[in-house]
C-alpha cells in the first residue's frame, strides 16, 4: 500500500469537500478527489459508496449541495452536461444515455449532425460520418444504421464510449465502463484510455474488477460511505477490500462444496435456438456447473430456453429424468427451475414494491387459502429469508428500488429459494456488484449447492467460474467447445478455450 505522494503539478480535476443528499439520504459527504493530467485514476468502493454520484456531479448531471469543483485550477459550476462538455469534460455514465429507438449514427452524432442543404441532415450523411468515427477508433463490429435497441449491451457501451472519445476529451469520466464489456472490448477501451493518458489527458474510471484496476490505474482513490478514505499509487486487492468495507475479508471465494455423485437434476439434450447451435449436458444435485465463454455465443439463449422465456428450436430438457417443455417462466418455475438474471431491473424485480412483496411474489398461490393471502405467514417467510440472506435494507417494507444492486440481487434469489426451486440458473449475477456483496453471493451459492440444489452458473468473469464451479462448460459459436473439470480449472484455461487457443498445460 502506497499513499499517493502529493504531486507538485496542478491537478486537472479537483473535487473539494463535495456533498450531495437525495431526500435526506447522504450519497456524498465532504468527499474529495484530485486527478492529474496524464493519469488514469480509478475510483473504487462498494455500491453506494458515492462513486457514481461523484461522477454525475463532475459530468454536470447533478449539482452538489456544497463543495467546490475545479477544472485546471479554476472553480467551475457544472450546471448541465453541456457546461461540462464545453470545458472538455465528457462522461460515460453507468446508466447509458443512448436513445433506443434511434440509429447508432444518430446517437453518435447527436447535436452535431452533419448537415447539408437548408441545414438538414440525412441518414446517409449520418451513417457516413458515423462510419468515419468508428474507423477512427477501430470499431468494425457495429452497424451505424442499426437501431440502438437492437444491439447487445456491450455494443451500446462501446457506442457510448466512442461518443465520448470522439470529442477528444480533456477529462474523460467512465463509470463502470467495463461491466458490460467482454475481454476483447475491454482491451480496446484500455488501449484508447492509455492513448489519451499518454496525450496528457485525465481519465477517471470506476470498476469492480480488481484485475482491471491493477492493469491500468495510475492512482486509486477508495470510497466508503460517501467519502474518500485514501488515495494510493499502489494497492493490492485485499488492502482495497479492507478499506472499502472497513473490515477484513479473509478470502473472497468460499471453498467449493464437494459434489455428491447423485442422479442428474437437469439433463439437456441437443438444445438449440437462436445462437445456441446445440448443447447437451447434465447437472447433478449439489453441483455448481459453470458455463463460460464470450458473450454472444449462445449463453443467453441457453438460459432463456431453460427458463421457458424463449422458444426452443430443437432439443429436450429433462427434469429428474422426466421430459419438460417449459413454454413460459411460469411453467419453468412450476418444474422447479428459477432464473436469477443479470439485469435485475428489467428482469424480475418490481422496483416500487416492497422487499417483502418481491420476496413472496412466487409463492402467493401456495400461501393463500381460498384465494385469500395468508398475510402473517407471508410476512414471517419474508422476514426469515431476509435474515438468511443478510439483506441490507432500511426496512422490509421499503421499496426494492431503495436497495443497492447486490441486495436487489439477493431479493431475487430469495424469491426463488422461497419458491423451493431445485434448479437455479445464475446468469452473470455478480456483474456490477461490489466486492462485499459478491462475497456474500458466493457464500450463498456454495451453501445452496451444499444443501443439494443444482446450480447452472454463467459468469462473464472467468475468475469466478474457476473458483466456484465444479466443472465448466465453455460455449463457443453455440456449441460446447470444452469441458474443464475442477482439477484443471483456471481462469486462463476458460478464456483460452473460449478463444479457441490450445489450452496451456
Amino acid at each position: 500500500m502506497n499513499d499517493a505522494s502529493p504531486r507538485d503539478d496542478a491537478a486537472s480535476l479537483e473535487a473539494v469537500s463535495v456533498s450531495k443528499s437525495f431526500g435526506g439520504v447522504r450519497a456524498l459527504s465532504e468527499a474529495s478527489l484530485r486527478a492529474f493530467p496524464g493519469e488514469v485514476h480509478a475510483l473504487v468502493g462498494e455500491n453506494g459508496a458515492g462513486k457514481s454520484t461523484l461522477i454525475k456531479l463532475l459530468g454536470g448531471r447533478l449539482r452538489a449541495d456544497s463543495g467546490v469543483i475545479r477544472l485546471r485550477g479554476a472553480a467551475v459550476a457544472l450546471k448541465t452536461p453541456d457546461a461540462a462538455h464545453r470545458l472538455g469534460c465528457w462522461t460515460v455514465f453507468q446508466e447509458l444515455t443512448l436513445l433506443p429507438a434511434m440509429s447508432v449514427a444518430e446517437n453518435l452524432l447527436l447535436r452535431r449532425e452533419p448537415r447539408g442543404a437548408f441545414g438538414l441532415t440525412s441518414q446517409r450523411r449520418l451513417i457516413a460520418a458515423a462510419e468515419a468515427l468508428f474507423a477512427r477508433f477501430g470499431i468494425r463490429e457495429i452497424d451505424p444504421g442499426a437501431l440502438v435497441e437492437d444491439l447487445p449491451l456491450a455494443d451500446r457501451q462501446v457506442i457510448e464510449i466512442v461518443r465520448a472519445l470522439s470529442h477528444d476529451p480533456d477529462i474523460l469520466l467512465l463509470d463502470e465502463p467495463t461491466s458490460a464489456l467482454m475481454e476483447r472490448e475491454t482491451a480496446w477501451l484500455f488501449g484508447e484510455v492509455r492513448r489519451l493518458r499518454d496525450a496528457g489527458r485525465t481519465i477517471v474510471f470506476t470498476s469492480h474488477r480488481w484485475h482491471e484496476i491493477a492493469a491500468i490505474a495510475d492512482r486509486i482513490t477508495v470510497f466508503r460511505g460517501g467519502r474518500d478514505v485514501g488515495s494510493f499509487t499502489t494497492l493490492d486487492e485485499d488492502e482495497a477490500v479492507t478499506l472499502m468495507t472497513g473490515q477484513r475479508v479473509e478470502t473472497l471465494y468460499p471453498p467449493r462444496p464437494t459434489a455428491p455423485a447423485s442422479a442428474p437434476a437437469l439433463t439437456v439434450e441437443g438444445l438449440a435456438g437462436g445462437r445456441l447451435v446445440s448443447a447437451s449436458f447434465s447437472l447433478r444435485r449439489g453441483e455448481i456447473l459453470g458455463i463460460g465463454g464470450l458473450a454472444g455465443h449462445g449463453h443467453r439463449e441457453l438460459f432463456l430456453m431453460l427458463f421457458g422465456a424463449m422458444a426452443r428450436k430443437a432439443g429436450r430438457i429433462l427434469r429428474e429424468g422426466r421430459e419438460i417443455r417449459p413454454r413460459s417462466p411460469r411453467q419453468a418455475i412450476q418444474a422447479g427451475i428459477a432464473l436469477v438474471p443479470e439485469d435485475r431491473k428489467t428482469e424480475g424485480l418490481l422496483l416500487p414494491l416492497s422487499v417483502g412483496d418481491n420476496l413472496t411474489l412466487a409463492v402467493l398461490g401456495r400461501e393463500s387459502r381460498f384465494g385469500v393471502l395468508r398475510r402473517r405467514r407471508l410476512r414471517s417467510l419474508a422476514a426469515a429469508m431476509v435474515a438468511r440472506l443478510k439483506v441490507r435494507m432500511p426496512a422490509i417494507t421499503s421499496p426494492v428500488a431503495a436497495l443497492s444492486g447486490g441486495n436487489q440481487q439477493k431479493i431475487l434469489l430469495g424469491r426463488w429459494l422461497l419458491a423451493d426451486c431445485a434448479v437455479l440458473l445464475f446468469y452473470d449475477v455478480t456483474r456490477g456488484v461490489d466486492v462485499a456483496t459478491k462475497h456474500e453471493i458466493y457464500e450463498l451459492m456454495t451453501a445452496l449447492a451444499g444443501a443439494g440444489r443444482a446450480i447452472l452458473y454463467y459468469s462473464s468473469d472467468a475468475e469466478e467460474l474457476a473458483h466456484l464451479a465444479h466443472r465448466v462448460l465453455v460455449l463457443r459459436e453455440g456449441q460446447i467447445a470444452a469441458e474443464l473439470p475442477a482439477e484443471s480449472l483456471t481462469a486462463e484455461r476458460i478464456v483460452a478455450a473460449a478463444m479457441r487457443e490450445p489450452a496451456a498445460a
Partner: protein
Amino acid sequence: MTPPRRAPLSQALARHLGLALVATLLVIAVIVYAALYLVTQGRLPGGFELTASVNNTMPLALAALARAIVALTRGLDLSIGGIIDLSNALAALYLGTNAASMIVASALILLAGAGLGLINGALVAYGRLQPILVTLATLAIFQGLAIRVLPQPGGAVPESYTALLVNTGAPYALIYVLALMLLWTVLRRSQAGIALLAIGNDEAAAAANGIDPVATKLVAYTLSGLIAAGAGLFLAASATAGDATTGNGYTLTSIVAVVLGGVSLFGGRGSGIGAILGAFVTTMIVNILFFAHIDPLYQSFYEGAFLVIAVVLAEGIGRLVRRRRVQT
C-alpha cells in the same frame, strides 16, 4: 465475431417499420375498398370518390400530424380538438371575401393556433405537469372560447377558399398531403426534429446529451397547435361554414390515426408520414364498412374490432421482425 452488415434496404425497413406497415395497410384497405365498390356498384371508384376521400381526410391528416409531433415527445395533446374548433369558428367569421383578407386571416388563425399550442407547451414544460391533464383543461378552455366566438353554427367560407383548399373538382388536395409529408421530412431532419425524438426516447438521456427538454417541448406543442389550426381551416373550407363543436371528434380519431400510423404514444418512435397515412386508413375503414353494408348498429363494433386487429398485427409483426433481426 463481425455480424454481417445488413443491406441498406433492409436497414431502412427496420428503421421505418411502422411506416412500412401502415403503407401496406393503406394499400390493402384501398384494394378491399375498390373491390367492394366494384362488387356493389358495378364499376370502380373514380375521380369523385378519390377527391371526396382526400378532401374529407385532410383535417384528420393534419390533426394526426399535430398529434404525432406531441406523441413523439411522449406527450398526449387532448386540446387538438379545441384548437380545431377555435380555428374553424374564427375562419367562418373572419376569412372575408377577398384574397388579401383570406391570406391575412388564415395566417393570423394559424398563429393563434401556434400561440395556444405554446401555452400548452409552457404549462407542460415549465409547470412540469402531466400533458394529459394540462391539455384536458385547455381543451375545455379552447372549446369554451370557440363557442364564445361562434355561439351557434354559421358564418360562411368563400367559395374560392373552398376551391383552393378542398377543390371538389379534382383531388388537388393531394398536393397538401405531399406538402405535409415534406414538412415532416424537413422537421425530422432538422435539429428540432431530432430533439423531439430524442426526448421522447428517453428524456433523461437526451438531457444528458445536452438537449433542452423545455425548449423542445415548447417547439413540439407550438407546432402541434399550428398544424391543428390548419386542420380547422380545412374543416371550415370543406364545410363551407363554421361550427364550434365539429373539431371535438378529431381529438379521438387522431389518436386512432396516429396509432395506426405506427407512432408510439409512449414517445420516441414513429413518423409524421405514418400518422398522415394512418388518417387515410381510417377514412378507408369508413368506406369499407359502408360498401360492405354492415348493419349500422354493428358498425362501431366492426370499426373497433378492425382497429384492435390492426394494432395487434402491427405490434406482432414489429416484434417478429425485431426478434429476427436481433437473432441473426
